[in-house]
């Protein structure tokens, strides 16, 4: 149970100031019901849902309001009862800051709910039933990626899974929602792990927690001592950013590297966030869809930082208000942590399933108006890179848009963790360059694909026109020939 596991290192990484205590000092509280709940219809890039409710329709808590046939899609459920105001354009929790279609519900305060799905005794259910329930309950990865959990549990017939990793290594500064979850709901996390082991039909689960989270470790240990299941072990991992990155955590725990361009299942591992495990427990045993989550509201820009149990779809402004409002020196509003989170243009944006932290950062906490200097090739970036890339080369090639070279230097293996940029003495916005270059590469590929289709269609069009022309000419020739033949037949009779 207490793992004597040999741990491994990954290259680079940083020891960052944690800033975690501020949001852990107050107990987890339940956020009040907002006047409106907003559910954006883009789940993750490329996965769009269709609203299953009509404007004016009354919905109950737990009712499906949007879904899609897409294999990566999971349904979205209303978190409270109310009337659908409409499917409107609303600023999305997305780095673009663009509006997107969203289902907006005017809550009625009655908190009426549909009857929960029947609780399952998972030990007697097939893995397929459990996975179906996980999808039905709208469970997605709560660590930030919002990837469909049910899909992740189906690694395909060619991959043999032997280990489940529960990721409780919350490595980014400020974020404490997983820590708070393990302190308050360790039981649900452990039960979730058991359900996952059953669904995957495997016998080994590692629960990874950063070594400084003593309370969370103690809470987990207490439950594990009670459960006494030899398949589960919890591991304290060193707090080096980005240990909580899926691939980095797998490396630390097993020494294995998920292949570039592949997935962790290629090395026999499925990785889930601890919050996801708790959501699975709620879905399978209690029959509850995913409509609530723990979210950290923190930073020097908010008066009373703490963790909130909040309805998904709650506008950020509501959570900020319940946390005592903004302080005068608030400067930037970030979803996620200071390393990988994205800044929001407005606080009317709702929290989504993947929103783990609202960081209201003060001027002293964030980098504003930096002055960029020339790269002095110091190589600090390469030392810090957890993927062992050469950030400097990527920077040069990004600047001149040399996409072929960027591919050679493995741009798409970059996890955008930000380590290189934080250590750069010249304050070059490296990650920004990489993201732009990635976007550009993807757009170019899309354009090339479109051009290829256009060319095919044009060729077909030309071919068809040529054929029609030829047929027309052939018909004309045949008519002429027939006419000539008829004339010839007429002539002898005349003579």
């Amino acid at each position, binding site marked *: 149970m207490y793992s004597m596991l040999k741990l491994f290192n990954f290259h*680079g*990484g*940083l*020891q*960052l*100031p944690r800033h975690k205590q501020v949001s852990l000092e107050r107990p987890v509280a339940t956020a009040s019901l907002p006047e409106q709940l907003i559910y954006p219809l*883009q789940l993750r*890039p*490329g996965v*769009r849902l269709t609203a299953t409710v009509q404007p004016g329709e009354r919905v109950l808590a737990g009712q499906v309001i949007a879904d899609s046939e897409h294999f990566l899609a999971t349904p979205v459920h209303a978190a409270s009862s109310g009337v659908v105001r409409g499917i409107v354009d609303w600023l*999305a929790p*997305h*780095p*673009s800051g*663009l509006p*997107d279609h969203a289902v907006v519900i005017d809550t009625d305060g009655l908190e009426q709910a549909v009857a929960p799905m029947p609780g399952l005794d998972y030990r007697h259910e097939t893995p397929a039933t459990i996975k179906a329930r996980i999808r039905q309950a709208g469970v997605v990865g709560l660590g930030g990626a919002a990837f469909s959990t049910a899909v992740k549990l189906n690694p395909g017939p060619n991959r043999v899974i032997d280990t489940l990793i529960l990721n409780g290594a919350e490595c980014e500064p400020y974020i404490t929602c997983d820590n708070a979850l393990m302190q308050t709901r360790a039981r649900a996390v452990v039960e979730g792990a058991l359900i996952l082991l059953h669904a995957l039909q495997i016998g080994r689960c590692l629960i990874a927690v950063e070594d400084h989270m003593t309370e969370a470790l103690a809470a987990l240990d207490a439950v594990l001592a009670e459960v006494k299941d030899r398949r589960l072990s919890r591991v304290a991992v060193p707090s*080096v*950013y980005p240990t909580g990155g899926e691939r980095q955590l797998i490396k630390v725990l097993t020494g294995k590297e998920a292949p570039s361009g592949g997935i962790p299942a290629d090395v026999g591992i499925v990785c889930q966030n601890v919050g996801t495990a708790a959501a699975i427990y709620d879905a399978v045993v209690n029959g509850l869809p995913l409509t609530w989550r723990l979210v950290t509201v923190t930073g020097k820009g908010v008066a009373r930082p703490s963790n909130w149990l909040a309805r998904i779809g709650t506008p950020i402004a509501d959570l900020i208000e319940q946390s005592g409002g903004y302080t005068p020196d608030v400067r930037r509003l970030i979803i996620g942590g200071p390393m990988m989170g994205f800044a929001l243009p407005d606080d009317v944006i709702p929290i989504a399933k993947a929103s783990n932290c609202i960081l209201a950062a003060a001027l002293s906490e964030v*980098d*504003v*108006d*930096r*002055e*960029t200097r020339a790269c002095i090739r110091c190589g600090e970036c390469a*030392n*810090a890179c957890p993927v062992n890339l050469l950030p400097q080369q990527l920077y040069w090639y990004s600047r001149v848009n040399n996409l072929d070279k960027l591919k050679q230097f493995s741009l798409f293996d970059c996890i955008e963790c930000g380590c290189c940029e*934080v*250590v750069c003495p010249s*304050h070059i*916005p490296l990650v*920004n*360059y990489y*993201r*732009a270059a*990635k*976007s*550009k590469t993807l*757009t170019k590929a899309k*354009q090339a694909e*479109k*051009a*290829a*289709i*256009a*060319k095919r*269609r*044009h060729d*077909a*069009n*030309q071919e068809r026109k040529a054929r029609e022309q030829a047929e027309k000419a052939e018909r004309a020739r045949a008519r002429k020939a027939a006419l000539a033949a008829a004339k010839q037949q007429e002539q002898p009779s005349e003579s």
Partner: protein
Amino acid sequence: MSFLLICGLFVLFGILLGFASVKFRVKGDPVADKIEAILPQTQCGQCSFPGCRPYAEAIASGQADINQCPPGGQEGIEALADLLGVESKPLNAEFGVEKPKRVAIIHEQDCIGCTKCIQACPVDAIVGAAKQMHTVVANECTGCELCIEPCPVDCIVMEPIPEDLSNWQWPAPVVVAKPAAQPDLNVQHA
């Protein structure tokens, strides 16, 4: 002796070269193919050639310049210059100007179902039948504008493709020169 050796070497290399020229002969016109791969396949004819392939062949044979493709824009010209090893140059305005990507939209209430646009479309992206309303398959439309002119009731307009979450791109960095931020000394390399 050495004279014979050199003669022998000449013969040997001659045979090798002859063999290579037969064995590694490239079929078709590889340069035109590579040029065509760079062209945007809009098939708009703005370059004065009837489609991207004819323009590619004209460039390959030296009959056309590389700066006649407005949809390909400056980026396309750079790529062509790179491929052909010639100096890049600005787009020749005679053939049009670079515009953001657009798609054709048919105002369906005004459409009389004449099928003229259907015949003009180089990629068969307009569907409809005689006396029936027509519509553009937006996904297949290349934005060539060839359908605009034939329409007798001017019911086709070009609309810019709006930026949304599906086509949004991370912007490239903007470098600002302002006083440096105060570094945080608590971060250490692992």
